[in-house]
């Protein structure tokens, strides 16, 4: 505690010094803005901070040497795309200080981050972009060992390839079961895009097979569009079991690849369990996650409601009406960076306006989308009324083809912006 007083005194002194000093000197005297997590949110934010203020010291903490992107990974597991198309390196980050270590703890009071090797570094402001952790305490039977048999494939990489290989090894006539969680979770239309592309694979390679979606919800993103497309492209192949028909999986048995619901047991040849999720571990340790497991934020600055000087963006944040998507993460990152850069310079952050666009592929060359525009309202990010919505239910194939092409190009554009 005496240290704290000394620290605050020190901070005040360095602020006073900063007023007199040239920006370069100020930048050296002041601890960096630290960003934890090099995904769509964190990498975008670190980049945007540097773009906003060249003199700001920005540190990005990310232990992995490559990033494996989730958008389009459903195409990988359906055999339509190589995993290399999902792989991005962290070698284009210019003068952003990249620390390739895991952050293990945050001391919000002293404004310090501890790394796995025991060193700790101070920050002027911290941006947490930890993505999601899969909850291995939420679904009996689904623990860390179970993922080797019943892959989640909800983080791209080895899990994506495992699910792809299981599908490839499955005999024709097999049953694939996909278990989808209750809201909120990463990528709301993701399970249904996945079901669509698996169905495409089954239809073309194993036509006597079947796909069952066991869902903990009674409604899902772009539902009418997906269902209409399934009817048209994959008649009789996909069975969606909603919550009210006993879709919620309450237990799994990896040894027998059995999924248990309140209405009975389902035995799968390939089981893809997308478990409930929460904000990534560092958010829990920093004390910015609430009892829901997610992080409440101020919608203007993305500053945590629970800890000062810590901002949370991307999937980990409670984004109000904004979905947990790569597009949202990137848009939030840039808005958050503007707020952080303003706050560091002791200026008033501007009211942001955000956009999200999520594409889903129902089949190769068949894309659909949902879009929204958001602004802070009543302490949350709320949808601007009269804007946004999904692709039209009735549209010629040319529109679906165009949206599939836009989806591909969106991915190319955003990954080039985020990873260089």
């Amino acid at each position: 505690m005496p240290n704290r007083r000394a620290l605050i005194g020190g901070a005040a002194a360095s602020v006073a010094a900063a007023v007199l000093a040239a920006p370069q000197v100020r930048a050296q005297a002041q601890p960096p803005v630290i960003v934890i997590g090099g995904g769509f949110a964190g990498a975008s934010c670190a980049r945007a901070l540097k773009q906003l203020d060249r003199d700001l010291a920005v540190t990005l903490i990310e232990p992995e040497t490559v990033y494996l992107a989730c958008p389009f990974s459903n195409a990988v597991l359906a055999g339509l795309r190589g995993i290399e198309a999902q792989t991005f390196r962290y070698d284009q980050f210019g003068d952003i200080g990249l620390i390739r270590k895991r952050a293990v703890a945050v001391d919000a009071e002293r404004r310090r981050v501890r790394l796995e090797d025991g060193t700790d570094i101070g920050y002027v402001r911290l941006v947490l972009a930890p993505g999601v952790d899969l909850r291995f305490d939420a679904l009996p039977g689904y623990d860390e060992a179970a993922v080797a048999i019943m892959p989640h494939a909800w983080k791209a990489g080895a899990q994506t390839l495992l699910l792809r290989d299981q599908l490839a090894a499955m005999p024709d006539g097999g049953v694939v079961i996909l278990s989808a969680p209750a809201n909120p979770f990463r990528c709301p239309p993701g399970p249904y895009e996945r079901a669509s592309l698996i169905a495409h694979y089954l239809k073309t390679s194993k036509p006597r097979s079947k796909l069952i979606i066991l869902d903990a919800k009674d409604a899902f993103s772009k539902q009418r569009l997906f269902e209409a497309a399934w009817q048209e492209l994959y008649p009789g192949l996909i069975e969606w079991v909603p919550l009210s028909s006993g879709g919620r999986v309450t237990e799994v048995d990896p040894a027998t690849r059995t999924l248990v619901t309140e209405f009975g047991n389902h035995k799968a040849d390939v089981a893809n369990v997308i478990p409930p999720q929460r904000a990534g571990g560092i958010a829990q340790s920093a004390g910015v996650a609430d009892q829901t497991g997610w992080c409440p934020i101020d919608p203007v600055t993305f500053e945590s409601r629970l800890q000062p000087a810590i901002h949370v963006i991307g999937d980990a944040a409670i984004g109000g009406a904004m979905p947990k998507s790569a597009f949202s993460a990137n848009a939030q990152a840039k808005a958050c960076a503007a707020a952080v850069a303003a706050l560091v310079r002791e200026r008033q952050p501007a009211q942001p306006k955000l956009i999200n666009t999520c594409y889903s592929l129902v089949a190769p060359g068949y894309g659909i989308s949902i879009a929204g525009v958001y602004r802070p309202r009543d302490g949350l990010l709320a949808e601007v009324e009269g804007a946004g919505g999904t692709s039209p239910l009735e549209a010629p194939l040319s529109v679906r083809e165009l949206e599939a092409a836009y989806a591909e190009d969106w991915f190319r554009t955003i990954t080039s912006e985020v990873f260089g």
Partner: protein
Amino acid sequence: MTSHDMRRSKNRRGGRSFVPVLLAGLVASAPAWADAAPGATACTGCHGPAALGSAIPSLDGHAADDIVAQMQAFRSGERKATVMDRIARGFTEEETRAIAEWLAKPEAARHAQP
């Protein structure tokens, strides 16, 4: 992006460090990004540099008036779109104008690069 673009943007950045220290102190080296109108930075999530050769048109080199007119046409439905009609309706005329003015600035000011 290409290594050529990379060099170009690095050169531009290099130039910025010669801004007189006194001036930099006054404006806190405020670059164009700091002036981004609300919503503007989200555009580049889809609309990249022209060099990317995307089917989604680049916004590079468009005059502000042109962007405002296109957004108006999206809003009214006069110009057919897949998503831009849904997005354009989320912005007022005034907001659109501010975004367009920012987007019309030189390329290096807009695309996020370290």
